């Protein structure tokens, strides 16, 4: 019986192989081709739509205008960098001369204060969002674990979380700004106040999703695992470290991805609103500038913001794959 089946299979295997590989190819092709088609259609619609919209600053930017601007912005960045290098070189030469004349002279080094380029603004926004996010994680994950473990704490804190969760962090921004300028006074500040303001705003909006997801994950730990820990009489700290933390990693990551996505959106808005350095400020400045290029530069920024948001989420996903034992949840 089995040999018969095997014979049938070998006779058939050539054609099945062909069909299989064709199917495989078409699947792969689909995964590549369909998004390409989608993008192409989008570009066509976009350029048509752009062509037919007239604004007081000229036509709405189409794909071509954006492509040109990407080139422009990059060149501006490079020439700015060259200027900066030249500035420092001149300064050094000047100082060297003074020292040659007068060995007791203490050289003054002044920082270059050129305009921030688009790439600088991207860097600023990225650093801000990551700092705020990490600060939030440092606070929210331990707090979430504590709330998840203790029913008492949960009952006590839950109303506060529920009330603050729906508040847009932008509403906090004026308060944060005032508090920071009142509290953060030092003669030689390590960070700019604007950076601190943006960062705290990011932290505020990351906090709640992380606390909630972590605590829900911790509270929902498989009772069997808790029983294993009880039978072993694991001390509380070991229990948290060996059982609770790994068990709730998937939930923690869900919270982190959620809040990083929100944080990126909120940060751009906060930068626009508060004129803090970053991509938001770039957009706002271009808008105020109102030159014929402004709209295409803003459109470029919009697309870059989207890409960065996408990449941030991918990066979190990769991190989750690296850390989590639960490969299933990392694929969602």
């Amino acid at each position: 019986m089995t040999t018969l089946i095997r014979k049938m299979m070998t006779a058939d295997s050539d054609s099945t192989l062909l069909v299989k590989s064709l199917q495989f190819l078409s699947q792969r092709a689909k995964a590549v081709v369909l998004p390409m088609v989608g993008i192409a259609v989008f570009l066509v619609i976009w350029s048509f739509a752009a062509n037919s919209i007239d604004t007081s600053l000229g036509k709405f930017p189409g794909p071509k205008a954006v492509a040109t601007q990407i080139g422009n912005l990059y060149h501006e960045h490079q020439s700015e960098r060259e200027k900066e290098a030249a500035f420092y070189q001149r300064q050094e030469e000047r100082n060297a001369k003074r020292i040659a004349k007068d060995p007791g002279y203490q050289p003054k080094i002044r920082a270059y204060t050129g305009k921030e380029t688009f790439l600088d603004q991207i860097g600023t926004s990225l650093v801000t969002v990551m700092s705020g996010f990490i600060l939030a994680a440092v606070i929210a994950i331990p707090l979430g674990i504590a709330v998840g473990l203790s029913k008492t704490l949960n009952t006590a804190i839950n109303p506060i979380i529920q009330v603050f969760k729906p508040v847009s962090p932008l509403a906090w921004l004026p308060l944060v700004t005032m508090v920071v300028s009142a509290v953060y006074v030092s003669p030689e500040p390590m960070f700019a106040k604007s950076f601190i303001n943006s960062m705290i705003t990011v932290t505020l909006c990351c906090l709640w999703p992380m606390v909630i997801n972590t605590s829900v994950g911790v509270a929902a730990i498989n009772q069997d695992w808790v029983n294993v820990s009880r039978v072993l009489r694991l001390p509380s700290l070991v229990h948290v470290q060996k059982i609770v933390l790994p068990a709730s990693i998937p939930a923690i990551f869900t919270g982190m991805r959620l809040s990083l996505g929100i944080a990126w959106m909120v940060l751009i808005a906060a930068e626009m609103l508060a004129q803090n350095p970053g991509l938001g400020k770039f957009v706002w400045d271009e808008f105020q500038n109102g030159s014929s290029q402004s709209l295409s530069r803003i459109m470029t920024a919009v697309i870059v913001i989207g890409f960065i948001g996408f990449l941030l989420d991918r990066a979190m996903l990769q991190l989750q794959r690296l850390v989590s034992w639960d490969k299933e949840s990392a694929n969602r």
Partner: protein
Amino acid sequence: MSILLDISKIDMVFPTPKGDFTALKEVDLKIKKGEFISLIGHSGCGKSTVLNVVAGLLQATKGGVLLNNKEVTEPGPERAVVFQNHSLLPWLTAYQNVELAVKQVFNRKMSKAEMQDWIEHNLRLVHMDHAMHKRPDEISGGMKQRVGIARALAMQPEVLLMDEPFGALDALTRAHMQDSLMEIQDELNNTVIMITHDVDEAVLLSDRIVMMTNGPAATVGEILDVKLERPRDRLSLAQDAEYNRLRSAVLTFLYEKQRKVENIPAQSSSKKTGETGDLQKVDNTNDVDVA
């Protein structure tokens, strides 16, 4: 021999939204060192509750459990539990799962090298040394259950508590695991309480079979002494008169004396729901599942 474990007239009452529910009433059982006890009874009668009280995971409402004349008040590694669904930690390998237990129990009593030897020894005992660096999701159900048993054995418990350890396994794997368990038992002579739904398993493995009455207010119905010689062999026992007498004694208890009277819809015979819709099948099957 003296009494190692004394389950002394325990009552267990669960508070529920519909009022108190008395799950156990005056369950009383004395177990000697080295004895292998099976707990058998219909689904939902309270077997797991008894085991959890002995483990210390639940506190009896009345009465108590004495181990070596000391009252049990909390869980501890001297009463190791093998849970029904293995409950291995999925982020640790088989080795690390056992290691977690060994590190906790033999902290400062063993050197690092001794610990490693001991972990590997226990995994070898359940024939899992070849896959000890695999994670639970990379091994089969039977293998997971073996690791769960290795983890419990590695604690060197005074009493080993097993809640339907082979319940989720197919019949062949289960037979295999029973043979392994008998082998280990010959070597270590542990004191064991095992919950089972399988009549053959109970007769094959036990020194005594404790049959529980139906709940609510379940208690010990009858206790059957199994005086079959060890080592036991399932094939030759199949013809053995004493074996068959014991087997039918258990079946009689379950299906005549403690026959479930409640009416269950005809479709509910799946094992998962744990109900007794398939009473008719009892006569013509060899591997009787009470659930």
